[in-house]
């Protein structure tokens, strides 16, 4: 049985990537419906009618999302990874994953773009934040945002450690 850190290394990039894709697809569809609604209102329809017409013309949103997900090349692997360890890790990610918080700590720090760092995503973010805080950001708001994000990182890493304990426990139990 793989150790918990191997499981994290294997599945974490998928979880983060899927969440980002899901979030972006939601935003994309929301934008589409809003644009269509605005267009219909400009052409003289009432807001309620325009909203209904935009949805009707778009089709079933849930179905569109399902079919779109099928196009993501990594969904096959995602399904294969449908085991209890994976679910546990996903649960751990629900506890304050910094890549999912959307907290913007300011421009000029590409290392903070956690989502694109595969595997080491949170650890690197955590380290970058510590370094940035150590050098002292000039802006107070940026500093507050960094501290908030650091807390999210710590929470996430803590939940990963908890996840590790559960995996170890399962292994010993078997």
């Amino acid at each position, binding site marked *: 049985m793989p150790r918990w850190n191997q499981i994290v290394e294997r599945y974490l990039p998928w979880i983060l990537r899927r969440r980002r894709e899901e979030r*972006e*697809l939601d*935003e*994309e*569809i929301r*934008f*589409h419906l*809003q*644009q*269509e609604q605005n*267009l*219909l209102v400009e052409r003289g329809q009432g807001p309620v009618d325009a909203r209904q*017409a*935009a949805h*009707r*013309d*778009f*089709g*079933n*949103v849930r*179905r*569109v999302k399902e*079919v*779109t997900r*099928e*196009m*993501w*090349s990594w969904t096959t692997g995602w399904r294969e990874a449908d085991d209890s360890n994976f679910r546990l890790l996903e649960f751990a990610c629900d506890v304050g994953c910094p890549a999912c918080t959307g907290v913007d700590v300011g421009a000029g720090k590409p290392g903070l773009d956690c989502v694109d760092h595969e595997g080491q995503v949170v650890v690197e973010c955590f380290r970058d934040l510590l370094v940035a805080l150590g050098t002292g950001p000039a802006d107070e708001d940026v500093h507050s945002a960094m501290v908030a994000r650091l807390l999210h990182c710590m929470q996430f890493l803590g939940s990963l450690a908890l996840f590790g304990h559960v995996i170890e426990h399962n292994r010993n139990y078997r």
Partner: protein
Amino acid sequence: MASKESKPDRIELLQGTLDMMILRTLQWGPQHGHGIGQAIRASSLDALQIEHGSLYPALHRLRKQGWIEAEWKITENKQRARYYRLTERGRKQLSTEESRWNRMVEAIARVMKPASSS
């Protein structure tokens, strides 16, 4: 966009042609999903019956094949939108699809009007 029920003269899209039309639309520059839908609708003079939701699986499939690329940008209305643009591979694919399409149209025309081809 008017409902499909109010446009009985709209034509159902032939299977496989949506990808080609998306690639063709992106030939004129990057565009977001809604813009692509609008462009197809306008250039077909509102004759094609496309459920706009069907654009998104197609866009993600084309992206997976490397024929288009996506990038988040800010629109004129200061909204964030995902813009798609044609890649070099996409241009080649569009050329292939267009040739295939023209051959098919000619072949069907010959079948439908055999006398005029002789």
